[in-house]
């Protein structure tokens, strides 16, 4: 007897069933035992119970769906980086950037992203400036990119200004002892903020002077110094 025949024969044994009369009799006995003369009060599942039941069924394939979503998101972010500003798919790049910002919660990291996106606007402007032949379309696109560039710079500026020292310094009145270190951190950060602000202003000037590559390089440098 082959394995297949064996399995087929075993499966045919499903036809073995209990006697119907016994099943019925036993059901009655069981009902009597568990109800014990008490009246049955119908139970209703609450909205939460039904919801948890449905969500359990719907969300069962969640791990696989989540993996696919992460794969698509990561793939989308990388693929969208190289979309030029005059492409019909440019909107995907914008959405991907907004998603990246929304998924970032640290202000410094967000500011770094703003600088990166501003640098990309500069690079796109350079590309349009070099490649586009239609003058009117070129001007419109450059105007749009300039506006986006400014928005990113302003956002970065606003975020950088929010970055403050996290360790509060004790005041002489409170403790009577002043640390040699106190005040140094503040000064260091102030110098750093000033340098960043100067860098942003320089990048804006370069962009306005149509030195788009220079603006992109400057913003990349600023992004690296921002920690």
């Amino acid at each position, binding site marked *: 007897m082959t394995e297949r025949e064996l399995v087929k024969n075993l499966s045919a044994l499903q036809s073995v069933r209990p006697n119907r009369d016994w099943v019925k009799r036993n059901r009655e006995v069981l009902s009597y035992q568990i109800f014990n003369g008490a009246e049955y009060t119908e*139970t209703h599942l609450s909205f939460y119970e039904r919801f948890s*039941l449905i969500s359990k069924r719907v969300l069962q394939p969640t791990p696989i769906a989540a993996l696919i979503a992460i794969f698509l998101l990561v793939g989308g972010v990388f693929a969208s980086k190289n979309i030029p500003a005059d492409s019909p798919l440019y909107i995907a790049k914008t959405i991907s950037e907004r998603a990246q910002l929304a998924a970032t919660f640290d202000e410094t990291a967000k500011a770094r992203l703003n600088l990166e996106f501003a640098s990309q606007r500069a690079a796109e402007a350079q590309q349009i400036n070099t490649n586009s032949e239609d003058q009117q379309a070129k001007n419109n696109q450059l105007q749009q990119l300039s506006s986006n560039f400014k928005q990113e710079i302003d956002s970065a500026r606003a975020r950088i200004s929010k970055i403050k020292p996290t360790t509060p310094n004790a005041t002489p009145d409170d403790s009577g002892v002043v640390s040699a270190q106190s005040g140094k951190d503040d000064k260091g950060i102030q110098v750093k903020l000033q340098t960043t602000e100067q860098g942003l202003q320089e990048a804006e000037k370069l962009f306005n002077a149509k030195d788009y590559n220079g603006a992109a390089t400057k913003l990349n440098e600023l992004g690296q110094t921002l920690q």
Partner: protein
Amino acid sequence: MNKPKKSSIFGGEQVLFLRLKKHKDKQAFIESYDLYIEQIYRFVYFKIGSKEDAEDITSQVFLKCWNYIYEGNLLSHDTLKPLLYKIARNTVIDHYRSSKDKQNVSLENAAELSDEKQNLELGLAVGMDFQKIISEKLPLLKEEYRDVIILRFINELSVSEIAKILSKTSGNVRVLIHRALQSLQGIAEDSEDIK
């Protein structure tokens, strides 16, 4: 007696189980009886080999299960089926022990006590030769092998369901199924050789 209610659109087994788990709903238990009685009976029957004993044990299984639910022990479970099978396995083991004490029935002679009418039905379903193998040789298989043969190939449970019942990993159950099938095939071939 109250008539059984049809299960809702949310999926019979889960709704029944939730009604039992959250509300110890007696009617839900009766509906569960309707749902599982055949497969639990079949499981017990192929382990015991006697129709009368299978009926007695199956009745006990459902009553024990209700008591278990009533005492509020259902919280650690997520479906009723594995629990019923676990209780059935333990009840069959208790039956073996008590039978051994009384020296009435043992695994080896269980086949001799099997019900004639049921054997005839079996013979019609699978042929008399295979019926003989199942009635006489299945009880000779190792306990675990017999369980997985019945659960997987007769009652057609999934590997994950069997894993829950036997408290093993799915991988272990797959290995067990493979070995059990080989073992039964060996027995079946030996029977053919003897003829």
